[in-house]
């Protein structure tokens, strides 16, 4: 029982203190818009240089786990996703807050996050060598299939109007074309501005569309409705614990899905959250399905278990192949190398003891995260009692700082303001913001992987048909795009 020995390796108060500190820091970093998991881990990477391997790595893992979860807090309470991975959580989470169910929503988020971490870490511990092959099987055609499949989700997160959702998605895809061409590096729509060379960073756009526009709406409500409630939320109901058992199937499925997406290099927590959300909705019963986007607890459970599942998943190719699965894993790779640990197939032989201590630490980090989350809910929900006037200021200040912190660049601050104004009018006219964010995440991936695949095949489209994984994913994407239309067509004919 190597894992048991791993737990024994944690029996050092210093290690536990660092682990708890890491998770706490992560939750704070994650809950602030603009400060992402990648940034949090990268900021604390140099701190670990002087530490022993286990405490140093566990500090970073704590930050990683905590920040992915932390993103959901502001998403649920203020419709302000702290990290891109929480954009999917905001849809049902904020709807629940408006119905007074903020406590239930936050409890679901933390339990689903804990579930996602634990399942993905267990997969990492017991199935790493088998799962690592998934990473190797994903080349450009498969990545294109995945991106296309992800984009087909737009039809399910469009909200009330499919047309408006699709318009938002296409606008997102258009914005994604700005910047250097991913294949030839030719500048597109950059007007000779160096800041535009790498295109619009989607995080400031997301902060603007969600957070800044929400602040504008609050300001409008305040001026329009002087006699109305001064607080952000009018009521705060008790947690509905009876709901939880019903969510376990969704959480389990999403955790596995998130883990698999985490293993695939290039697809991170944001993609996992949206895909899990979509799958939970696809297989929901009719009445339940209609509730997605309007405060369905399953929406939060799916998105949070999915994005947290990536944490363990991303470690699989990192540890067994030395290949980072996403941006955070890339920084983690640096942390391993500095500690003199060489990720690769031999890691279990060369650093076996250390690996099991690390795995045990990951499980403990997940539990610490759940405890912090559950204990913190009373504190977090206090945010809703803050008077609107103060809240507007806080959101705007934090959004501005968050945007600036991404690249230390004023340009991103102007982007959040512009996106905030556009987001305000979108909300007024019923255009959903999530499809834009999804298109900004997946558009560049779909374009570059499609063209990369064609470069590899020297122009032949057959590369998408002859490779089974790619063909399956593309077929699924087409199916999920057209199923709603076909169902409607047959129904109309019946009548």
């Amino acid at each position, binding site marked *: 029982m190597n894992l048991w020995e791993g737990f024994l390796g944690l029996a050092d108060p210093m290690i536990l203190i660092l682990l708890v500190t890491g998770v706490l*820091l992560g939750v*704070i*970093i994650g*809950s*602030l818009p603009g400060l992402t998991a990648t*940034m949090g*881990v*990268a*900021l604390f*990477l*140099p701190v670990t240089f002087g530490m022993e391997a286990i405490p140093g790595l566990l500090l970073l893992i704590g930050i990683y786990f905590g920040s992915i979860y932390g993103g959901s807090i502001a998403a649920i309470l203020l419709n302000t996703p702290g990290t891109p991975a929480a954009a999917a959580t905001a849809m049902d989470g904020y709807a629940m807050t408006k119905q007074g169910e903020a406590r239930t929503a936050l409890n679901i988020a933390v339990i689903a996050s804990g579930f996602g971490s634990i399942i993905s870490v267990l997969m990492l511990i017991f199935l790493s060598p088998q799962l690592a092959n998934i*990473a*190797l*099987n*994903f*080349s*450009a055609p498969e990545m294109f299939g995945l991106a296309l499949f992800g984009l087909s989700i737009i039809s399910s997160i469009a909200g009330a109007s499919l047309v408006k959702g699709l318009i938002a998605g296409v606008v997102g895809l258009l914005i994604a074309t700005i910047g*250097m061409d*991913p*294949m*030839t*590096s*030719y500048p597109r729509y950059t007007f000779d501005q*160096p*800041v535009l*060379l*790498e295109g619009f960073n989607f995080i400031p756009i997301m902060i603007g569309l969600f957070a800044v526009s929400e602040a504008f709406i609050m300001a409008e409500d305040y001026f329009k409705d002087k006699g109305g409630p001064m607080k952000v939320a009018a009521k705060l109901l008790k947690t509905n614990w009876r709901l939880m058992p019903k969510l376990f199937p969704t959480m389990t499925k999403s955790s596995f899905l998130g883990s698999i997406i985490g293993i695939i*290099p*290039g697809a991170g927590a944001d993609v996992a959250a949206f895909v899990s959300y979509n799958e939970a909705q696809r297989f929901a019963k009719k009445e339940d399905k209609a509730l997605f986007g309007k405060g369905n607890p399953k929406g939060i459970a799916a998105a949070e278990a999915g994005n947290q599942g990536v944490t363990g998943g991303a470690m699989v*190719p990192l540890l067994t*192949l*030395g*290949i980072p699965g996403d941006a955070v894993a*890339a*920084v983690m790779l*640096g942390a391993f*190398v*500095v500690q*003199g640990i*060489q990720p*690769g*197939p*031999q890691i279990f032989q060369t650093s076996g003891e250390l690996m099991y201590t690390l795995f045990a630490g990951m499980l403990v980090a997940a539990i610490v995260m759940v405890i912090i989350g559950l204990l*913190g809910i009373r*504190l*977090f929900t*206090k*945010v809703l009692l*803050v008077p609107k006037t103060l809240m507007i200021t*806080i959101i705007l200040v*934090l959004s501005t*700082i968050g945007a600036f*912190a991404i*690249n*230390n*660049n004023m340009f991103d601050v102007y982007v959040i303001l512009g996106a905030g104004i556009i987001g305000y009018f979108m909300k007024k006219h019923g255009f959903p913001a999530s499809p834009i964010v999804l298109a900004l995440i997946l558009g560049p991936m779909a374009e570059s992987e499609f063209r*990369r695949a064609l*470069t*590899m095949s*020297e122009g032949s489209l057959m590369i998408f048909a002859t490779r089974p994984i790619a063909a399956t994913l593309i077929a699924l994407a087409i199916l999920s795009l057209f199923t709603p239309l076909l169902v409607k067509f047959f129904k109309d004919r019946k009548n």
Partner: protein
Amino acid sequence: MKKYLLSMGMIVPLMALAACGDDSSTEANGEEAAENFPENSLEVIVPYAEGGGTDLVARAFAENLQEELGESVSVSNREGGGGAVGMQAGANSSADGHSMTLVTVELLTLPHSGLAELSYEEDFKPVALLNEDSAAITVHADSDYETIEDFIDAADSGENLQIGNSGTGAIWHLAASALEQEIDGSFNHVPFDGAAPAVNNLLGGHIDAVSVSPAEVINQVENGDLRVLAVMADERVDALPDVPTLSETGIDLSIGTWRGITVPADTPDEVVDVLADAAATTAQSDDFIERIETLQLGYRYEDPAGFTELMNDQDALFGELIPSLDLN
């Protein structure tokens, strides 16, 4: 509310880090400035993200320079435009020796590609070269190409080899293109978003080779999954003593990335001298060398004269190579 107070506590140091050194001032009286140098804290501008190789080199240097000068040295990351945004900010920063910029080979390649209006001669003065990583031709361990000669023969016989790089116009693409020109072959260049996905595709057998640095494949090479055929350097690389250089096979090609410290061009020479002396001690200290080696990066120090010579040579190389590739 408490959560937000806590958060603000987190933010303040970040802000402070971001806020320093934005305004540009003109040159001061050189000798007097040199005597008093450094007057206050220093800054290293890094044109790439936190946690990347370039950032880690800068942080290792800053930490050691801090001890040498007795003033704090902070690192601020200014990403964007493939390095253009940060290097431009560095060129415009205050020319008093307190703001340094960590520049990379992109200082030379970006202007030739028409992606930035920077000049290594007019915008910067070199202080110290800290690192150099050559390009390497790496194949899968199961590949039929056992030696670089096999590989070149295959290219000669008309086989369309797929070579992965970290992006069109990036240094590893330029390296593979230069080799292509030297051997008069034809490669199918497959650009990826960074070196890691290119290496992943090589591991999965989707492409034939990659032309990225040894540091980016060393893990997989030591695990026996990949094989390096040759490095594009003048001398063999310490980490791979058994791998021949291209020049050993009769191809005179040395190309790769490097990282070095510069200051804005208007910085008084006297100040640059003081800074260069401190940087020389720092860059040649055991602590710094050890850190570079743990990061699996190639160590190479050059003083301002040597650094200038390197940039002159490479600028001539890229000035010829890049226009001939017809990138845009």
